[in-house]
């Protein structure tokens, strides 16, 4: 009998309408979760309105008034640095008629003024002023300025430069949500003194795919690397086949977050095609080991990928940070940044600024081959006969190990569906419990 690697709790199968869509024990997934509008709508409620969603990197909003705009699910959100230094996040929608109050991707503002009637909101989202206020003077206008601020994101918190928010006031604290996955996050965020910064803006692209396909790819799919990226690897490192070292590579997951990684030290860095960057990683290895230990110093720059549930992904060494924003059941917006250690010399940062997108961005030599796989996988689900055929997620389920240093559920070797199933198990757990947002929706307005 096959010994199952995945720890299965009561949430193994979806209850109610979602019964049986995710079968972690049998290693299969129902294709409808990539296609059905009802499931997508429930995801917006039960995943994106409850989980901690990546909002910004602190380096993007260093000074009071600095802001970026982003999305939590399909909700447009403004994230800004307030006077005094705290970070605020609120809905980018006027409380009067709903118009968007900030139309820029990023910038610096003293206030956000709605273009429609001129309602002005402060850096904390508070309603500062409205034109012709005397028209609201009579108490029968029911105008209470103190209650008409932009709706604040319920909780906002940072982990080592990454700012997250959740619409759920009852969500566990961010540190608890990330849990032991910070061990793996720190390979990206805390390898060198001074933390990280993002370099120069954001690249965005719209893909005709369900958001879960790229997210599950980054959480654990080392398998596609050698086939999908053959041509890209050949172009960047003159190496056609990627050789997996299953004795010295792992997959690990915590709370639905996942990372797969080797211990080669430089394979991800090498695809950038700059020996100078590889040399930098080699030179700094001992210093990183002093901070993070020998094991994680070897993970730094190795062939690897990671995803923080639901949709924040990164590649150590490639130095790409990205999020997958749902834009409908069959549409995903990719936003991607270059993330660098502040301690890196300017020459290395300047190389990363162009080399990271050259490898991984919509036009990246490697990433260019990813998008259409996810698009065609999604599109196939339109067929009713096709959609009835479950997808196979059975690789490496016997590879669970206990590791003296690596936290979470750990698997020997990079070739495994274990992290992907853990991703879907987390998905299933959330989807099968309504949560506070669902209950709110059933309340009758006064």
């Amino acid at each position: 009998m096959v010994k199952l690697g995945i720890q299965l709790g009561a949430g193994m199968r979806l209850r109610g309408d979602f019964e049986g869509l995710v079968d972690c024990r049998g290693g299969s997934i129902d294709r409808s979760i990539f296609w059905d509008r009802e499931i997508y709508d429930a995801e917006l409620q039960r995943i994106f309105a409850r989980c901690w969603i990546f909002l910004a990197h602190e380096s993007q909003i260093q000074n009071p008034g600095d802001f970026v705009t982003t999305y939590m699910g399909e909700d447009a959100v403004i994230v800004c640095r307030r006077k005094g230094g705290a970070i605020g996040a609120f809905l980018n929608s006027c409380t009067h008629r709903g118009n968007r109050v900030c139309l820029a991707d990023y910038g610096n503002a003293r206030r956000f003024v709605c273009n429609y009637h001129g309602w002005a909101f402060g850096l904390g989202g508070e309603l500062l002023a409205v034109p012709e206020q005397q028209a609201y003077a009579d108490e029968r206008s029911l105008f209470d300025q103190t209650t008409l601020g932009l709706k604040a994101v319920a909780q906002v918190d940072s982990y080592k430069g990454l700012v997250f928010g959740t619409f759920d006031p009852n969500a566990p604290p961010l540190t608890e949500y990330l849990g032991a996955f910070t061990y793996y996050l720190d390979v990206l965020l805390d390898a060198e003194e001074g933390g990280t910064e993002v370099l120069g803006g954001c690249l965005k692209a719209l893909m005709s795919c369900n958001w879960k396909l790229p997210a599950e790819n980054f959480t654990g799919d080392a398998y596609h690397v050698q086939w999908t990226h053959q041509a890209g690897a050949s172009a960047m490192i003159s190496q056609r086949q990627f050789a997996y070292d299953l004795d010295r590579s792992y997959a690990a997951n915590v709370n639905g977050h996942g990372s797969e990684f080797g211990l080669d030290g430089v394979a991800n860095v090498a695809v950038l095609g700059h020996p100078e960057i590889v040399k930098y990683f080699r030179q700094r290895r001992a210093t990183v080991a002093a901070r993070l230990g020998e094991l994680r110093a070897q993970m730094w720059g190795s062939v690897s990928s990671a995803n923080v549930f639901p949709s924040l992904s990164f590649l150590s060494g490639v130095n790409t940070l990205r999020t997958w924003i749902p834009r409908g059941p069959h549409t995903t917006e990719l936003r991607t940044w270059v993330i660098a250690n502040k301690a890196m010399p300017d020459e290395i940062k300047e190389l990363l600024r162009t080399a990271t997108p050259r490898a991984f961005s919509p036009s990246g030599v490697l990433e260019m081959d990813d998008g259409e796989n996810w698009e065609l996988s999604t599109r196939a689900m339109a067929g009713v006969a096709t959609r009835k055929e479950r997808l196979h997620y059975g690789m490496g389920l016997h590879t669970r190990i206990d590791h003296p240093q690596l936290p979470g559920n750990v698997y020997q070797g990079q070739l495994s569906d274990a992290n992907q199933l853990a991703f879907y198990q987390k998905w299933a757990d959330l989807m099968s419990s309504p949560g506070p947002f669902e209950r709110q929706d059933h309340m009758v307005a006064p």
Partner: protein
Amino acid sequence: MSEASVAHAGISRDLRDEVVAFLYREARFLDHADYDSWLALLAEDIRYVIQASPALYRRDGGARENDIAHMDDGLADLRRRIKRFQDAAAWAEDPPTRHCHIITNIEVEATDNKDEFQVYSAFVNARGRFELEDVIMAGRREDIVRNGEDGLRLVSRRVFLTQNVLLSRNINTFL
């Protein structure tokens, strides 16, 4: 002297025609994915940039010079991209994309260097790959074209796209 006459000072009709023909030929090479011929039109010191197109308030100024870009390449980088395009394992290029590069609004102006010209143009790029797909990108370009011993060569190109979010999964061509 009017701005228009300054701009065209030193640019003969023949030279303008030659630059226009150069841009059309370049577009044809790209339409046919004839990247070796395309590479031969580039100067050794080329800098090829497809900018990101962030939405920014006027008071915050335009896009920053050091923003990350869809492409910011020298010749060696462009060769790498082409190596991937031409690789038999470039699955996303086979069956090949159907390309059409439409080039228009061409202006040629003199620069301080008598052998180099500032060239402005606009483009519409259409790509088809799957059954029901026709991806359109439009934008404008600011080029420096050099007249050397071997004829015209592209020295610098900066591409400005109209799309903020790229409305397609990739840019598997040059613009």
